[in-house]
């Protein structure tokens, strides 16, 4: 079998076509929103959310409503609880995220077990795009288009709020609303990715291509574009691996996405070379002297 046939033949089958469209929808939308999750340092929150959403999905299944609604409601509930614990009780943010997300995840596992279908639990946790239906694919595609278009259109506002939120507020940018929109979009993407990579692996598809793209590119626009290409490649490669060598789809897609980060890191290290490292040492020395900048520089006194 030649390479073209090895790649194309699986997609002559109807269930693989549905899986392909589903994989492309998730492969584009998750990395695009991932660029902003990485930029805003929301990776741990997103990881927690991907666990917590299990409770919403199980509740939606029990109530007979759309998974999307259950997922988004629980994501917002989680965000509200984290904000409450941080602002009212003074808990560290990571502790609050850990407690709330694991609590909701445990509730979701118990709920799924009580519903009496362990296969459904495995499906939600690890995904299986080979069983996805056309209506589900259509819903995934629509939500992915909304998320990607929103990210592309709002990129300047997201960048403004990420660079200097205080200044953004003084010129009338609703930073809190943008943050809420970002959290809702992340929840939507986790729900979209549920049947493809599962809630546990979705964080990988959100984070890994975005990280690789940030290493390779110098602007948010090219980062979103590159991340989506890497996400689609991981999705398609995962489907092919599942078809030809019977690997589980979701974890395989996640492994390929991680491999993309490893490969990108290697390329960047080689490309930068010793001259770059020497220059970086000089820059770091200047930063220590307070002459140059970085986002990681110690903060001045604030009152």
């Amino acid at each position, binding site marked *: 079998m030649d390479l073209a046939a090895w790649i194309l033949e699986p997609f002559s089958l109807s269930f693989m076509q549905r899986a392909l469209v589903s994989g492309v929808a998730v492969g584009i939308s998750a990395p695009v929103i991932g660029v902003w999750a990485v*930029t805003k340092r929301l990776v741990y929150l997103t990881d927690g959310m991907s666990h917590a959403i299990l409770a919403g999905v199980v509740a939606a299944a029990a109530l007979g409503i759309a998974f999307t609604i259950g997922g988004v409601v629980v994501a917002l509930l989680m965000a509200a609880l984290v904000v409450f614990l941080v602002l009212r009780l003074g808990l560290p943010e990571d502790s609050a995220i850990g407690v709330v997300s694991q609590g909701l995840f445990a509730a979701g596992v118990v709920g799924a077990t009580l519903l009496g279908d362990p296969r459904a639990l495995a499906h939600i946790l690890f995904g299986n795009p080979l069983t996805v239906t056309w209506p589900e694919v259509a819903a995934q595609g629509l939500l992915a288009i909304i998320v990607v278009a929103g990210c592309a*259109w*709002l990129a*300047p*506002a997201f*960048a*403004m709020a*990420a*660079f*200097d939120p*205080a*200044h*953004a*507020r*003084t*010129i*009338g*940018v609703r930073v809190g609303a943008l943050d809420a929109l970002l959290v809702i979009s992340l929840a939507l993407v986790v729900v979209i990715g549920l049947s493809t990579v599962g809630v546990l692996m979705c964080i990988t598809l959100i984070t890994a291509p975005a990280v690789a793209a*940030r290493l390779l*590119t*110098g*602007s*948010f626009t090219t*980062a979103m574009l590159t991340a989506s290409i890497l996400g689609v490649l991981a999705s398609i490669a995962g489907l092919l691996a599942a078809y030809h060598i019977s690997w589980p789809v979701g974890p395989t897609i996640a492994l390929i996405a991680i491999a993309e980060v490893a490969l990108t890191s290697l390329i960047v290290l080689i490309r930068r070379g010793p001259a770059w490292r020497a220059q970086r040492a000089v820059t770091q020395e*200047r930063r220590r*002297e*307070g*002459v*140059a*900048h*970085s*986002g*990681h*520089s*110690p*903060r*001045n*006194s*604030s*009152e």
Partner: protein
Amino acid sequence: MHVKPSDVPPAVQLRDLSVRFGEVVALDHVSLDVLRGEVVAFVGPNGAGKSSLLRAMTGLVPTTGDVLINGRALRVARASGVAYVAQRSLARWDLPLTVEDVVVCGRQGHRATLSRPSSRDRAAARDCLALLGVQGLTHRRIGELSGGQAQRVLLARALVQDPDIIVLDEPFAGVDPGAVHGLADVLMKLNDEGVTVLCALHEIDIAAKHFARIVALQRRVLADGPPSQVLNGDGIAALYSLPVDHAQSDA
């Protein structure tokens, strides 16, 4: 119609202004006026409330009391003609943005909500960079800037808002000594063009040299006047709780 000077409201009026963070009182019943075209430095030790005062003037912290800008209650800072330059170290200089991307942010208030920057916005950004003598940085990555360059970029972002009042929090912190006076000259040049300049400063020597009015803060206004009156030995001793002889040698 002829407008008498007395008919022109002050640029900033603070009336019985207090700022609290939980149990911590950052500002305690502060009242003062800043006239249009004044250049004012707010000095004081860490925790004196300098940053809180500036943030109150820009609507960033909840307050009690009144903040009037050009005689009207403060709304969104930009809509009131106030441009805010936060402490430089609080911004994310590691992001993949160019200098033009940052400066054009200041145009947000000049266009419809959620609309993207236009070519006119970008042209305005380049004009402001040119005005500050850093047009060569337009396409430079922000992570590659020196302290003085970065401060000018933030100043350009404020200028592109076309403000009446510029509020700067520690603009000289981390700027190398060679660039400090150039930056101060830029602020004075803006002031010459009618912009009211308000700065929170740690550097007493810069305040004394470049600012006509000094407000010494210690949660309240301890002293308010020209540098010779506020930044003499007794004034510095009172402000920083130093022995008078030690303060006189600093002054």
